[in-house]
């Protein structure tokens, strides 16, 4: 197809992920035979556009961190494809990745364990320069001190050790290290969830300012839906290794299409006691997320979904764009046209509406 007939894509994505899979083999016995696999990430596709923030939410164990470590190539994918600026990086070796390392950085969840306690702040933040064998203008020390003030730390703390800093300050150190080489893409895995609320807000604002100043692109992973709404332009909702909904921020919160998204949103506690009385119903998902070793057939949410019908158990729903910039993988979405209107027979054993929707007294 010629470029003229192709509908013009306004921006080329910075990162393009297609059918990404990661299965962790489960080994048993003296021979370490493979007896199964944890299907941590199981065929996900999405783009990240330059300058935007893509938020990723989902319950614990749904594969968010694994996804983050795959796209930064800290893990080797089992299948699928990852492209950074049009270049296939899916199976690059550590050596081949090195030139790209400066463009793609990761911030980790735990500000306590992600910094080496025996190294000074100067050494930690300056490490990327040494690894990449680059000498920044004005020297490493000067650059590190600039980075420290950029993230709101005192440049004179250059010779201090991580234990001398609070959790929020340590997270700033991790951010300074990630920014050392002026990356294009920063993947932040739960960057604020270990922090106290007041400190969490400081770090959220810092990430925001740095994006404006340095033109960064973010993938931010979090389980807190209020934080995700605040920081993201677009949001991916994950369930058991799959993306079940991918949408611009506003439609996701105002007109969620996937029943799982709806349930997640309805479970968020709201800091307003008046709403407690006003709230008419809350969707109360029962039980736990099924095991990713043998996930349910068809739609993986069918064991907990109150809308499940026969087709949900047999056929996996594709991720389709059912409204502009709003994709969902569901046969019977909310706020959109039913994709399987003829399949009306309720799935035997699925929870009923009454069981999942709890009406407050």
């Amino acid at each position, binding site marked *: 197809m010629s470029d003229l007939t192709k509908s013009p894509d306004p921006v080329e994505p910075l990162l393009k992920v297609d059918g990404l899979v990661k299965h962790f083999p489960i080994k048993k016995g003296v021979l370490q035979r493979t007896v199964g696999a944890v299907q941590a990430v199981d065929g996900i596709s999405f783009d990240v556009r330059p300058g935007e923030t893509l938020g990723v939410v989902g319950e614990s164990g749904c594969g968010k961190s694994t996804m983050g470590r795959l796209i930064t190539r800290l893990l080797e994918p089992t299948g699928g494809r990852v492209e950074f600026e049009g270049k296939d990086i899916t199976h690059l070796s550590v050596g081949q990745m090195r030139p790209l390392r400066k463009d793609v950085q990761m911030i980790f969840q735990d500000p306590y364990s992600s910094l080496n306690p025996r190294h000074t702040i100067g050494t930690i933040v300056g490490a990327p320069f040494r690894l990449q064998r680059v000498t920044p203008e004005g020297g490493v020390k000067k650059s590190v001190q600039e980075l420290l003030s950029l993230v709101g730390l005192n440049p004179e703390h250059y010779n201090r050790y991580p234990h001398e800093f609070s959790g929020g300050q340590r997270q700033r150190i991790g951010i300074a290290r990630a920014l050392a080489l002026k990356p294009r893409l920063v993947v932040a895995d739960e960057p604020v969830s270990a922090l106290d609320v*007041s400190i969490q807000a400081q770090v959220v604002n810092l990430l925001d300012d740095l994006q404006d100043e340095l033109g960064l692109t973010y993938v931010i992973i979090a389980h807190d839906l209020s934080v995700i709404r605040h920081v993201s332009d677009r949001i991916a909702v994950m369930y058991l290794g799959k993306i079940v909904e991918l949408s611009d921020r506003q439609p996701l919160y105002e007109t969620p299409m996937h029943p799982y998204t709806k349930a997640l949103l309805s479970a968020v506690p709201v*800091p307003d006691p008046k709403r407690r009385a006003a709230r008419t119903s809350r969707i109360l998902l029962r039980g736990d997320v099924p095991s990713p070793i043998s996930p349910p057939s068809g739609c993986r949410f069918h064991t907990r979904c109150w809308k499940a019908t026969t087709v949900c158990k047999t056929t996996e729903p594709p991720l389709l764009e059912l409204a502009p910039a709003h994709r969902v993988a569901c046969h019977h979405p909310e706020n959109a046209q039913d994709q399987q209107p003829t399949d009306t027979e309720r799935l035997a054993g699925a929870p009923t509406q009454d069981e999942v929707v709890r009406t407050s007294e």
Partner: protein
Amino acid sequence: MSELESQVGRPSVPGPRTQKDVFLSVRDLRIHFDTDDGLVRSVDGISFDLRRGRTLGIVGESGSGKSVTSLGIMGLHRSQRARITGEVWLDNDELIGSSEDFVRRQRGRRMAMIFQDPLSALHPYYTVGAQITEAYRVHHPVAKKVAKARAVDMLDRVGIPEPAKRYSSYPHEFSGGMRQRAMIAMALVNNPELLIADEPTTALDVTVQAQILDLIRDLQKEFGSAVIVITHDLGVVAEIADDLLVMYAGRCVERGTAEQVFAAPQHPYTWGLLGSMPRIDREQTERLIPVRGTPPSLINVPDGCPFHPRCPYADVPEDNVTRTVRPELREVGTGHFTACHLPQEERTRIWTEEVEPKL
């Protein structure tokens, strides 16, 4: 008007309990620890009353003294280095001055506790059912069969599927949410009149959190217990608490009904907590309004108001009083207390003109 004046500005002095339906009364509780680095003032003069059937939420950031307070009420600070003063009245019994043996007999029967980490409360080598059965038999001299039936019933009540089968499971065979339920079953097996839940949902996903909060609410309704829920999440307290106590640096800085504290918060730290949280129920704001700086060390608590190094209004009260005089908890509305030197008019003006519009 004169009636109002007589309430406003009256210091709340700890004294004998006045209301007769109060079940738990904490009076000027102080818990300090001797450490090599100095004296840690973890709890420094906390007072509150709690009636049966009511839920008190205690909020505050990490290290503000929430857990130490609850362990203090339960009589669980056994360390020689803990210095505890004040009074804890459980109905008509004062616990701080009572023998260890007496307090132990109250624990598990009249008062029980749910911890943040259920694995710390459940023994890894015994089945979940056996532990609940044992918790019952400690306080009830019944046959094992009777106690076991009670345990299965409790597992059922907290929503464990197939309770008779799961009775024989070990804690590690349960998911995080199920362990939390099992611990709640154990805490409630003796129908305690006081239940303290310390960060009961912090490690859990929102979906499981909603289930557990619902469960606590239902069980409270059923048993009419007095409940304390400790958390750093204002959303959680708004869901569940009738009354609210905001802690900062080992002290109570604000106390009132949940409606009062959320609708007209009085303390600059409470404003800071509200400004720090992104809210899903409001229009998207451009920026969060964090509290600057970090919480103080409880070894070197700042003089005067402990919040002054972080408070944007520290210079508003006259004569530098904020940095020299510790503000006492004063009643600023019926049953609504705050510890802050701001003159009431100024406080109301700042809240309505400067803070509230930005939230």
